[in-house]
């Protein structure tokens, strides 16, 4: 099996997984939204509100990963579109690191909303943004190399 075929097959699998996660999180987000609107319980509303914030962020990540995988499947490895999708994955990952999350309080037996700081997720997002920058520079080098006759 050639390298290109291997890249295409793995990219197709990643693309299908990302699309599946996108639609699952869309359904979960919709259910959460219904929970916020229709169920009066405060705890459920807080948890549902978290789903309403984190859900779209996760959907965005899945969408851009799916589009990136589709480009890899087509054999387009270092294009401006690849860089753009990778940058968005990095940005959205950074946002999920600071998205509000439900914080349970055992004393009052309730759930509040807090902002947790996840250093590992921040690091991952920074690495993704750095990789997208390196990929963009490599793409520019390739474009320039094409003008060497």
């Amino acid at each position, binding site marked *: 099996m050639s390298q290109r075929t291997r890249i295409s097959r793995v990219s197709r699998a990643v693309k299908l997984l990302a699309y599946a996660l996108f639609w699952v999180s869309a359904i979960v987000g919709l259910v959460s939204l219904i929970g916020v609107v229709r169920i009066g319980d405060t705890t459920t509303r807080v948890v549902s509100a978290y789903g309403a914030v984190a859900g779209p962020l996760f959907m965005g990540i899945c969408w851009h990963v799916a589009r990136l995988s589709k480009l890899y499947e087509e054999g387009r490895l270092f294009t401006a579109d690849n860089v753009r999708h990778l940058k968005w994955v990095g940005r959205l990952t950074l946002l999920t690191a600071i998205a509000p999350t439900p914080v349970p309080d055992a004393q009052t037996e309730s759930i509040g909303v807090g902002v947790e700081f996840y250093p590992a997720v921040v690091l991952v997002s920074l690495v993704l943004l750095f990789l997208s920058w390196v990929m963009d520079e490599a793409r520019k080098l390739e474009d*320039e190399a094409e*003008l*060497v*006759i």
Partner: protein
Amino acid sequence: MSIIVTLDVVLAQRKMRLNDLADAIGITPQNLSVLKSGRAKAIRFSTLEAICRVLNCQPGDIVRYEPEQTHSATG
């Protein structure tokens, strides 16, 4: 850019088409068109040698240097 490519002049003198030259030297017509139109950033010596061999010319017949004009205020 200060380097001017005059490949089209030599092609006209030799009555040769761009595609024929591309086939003769083993590069694509698109690449040769990039060179002819002045969009190329660099040319390999091997390519220059092949062009000069096929067209029976010197490198100076294909490329020439023209210093960029600097506009100065006249008083």
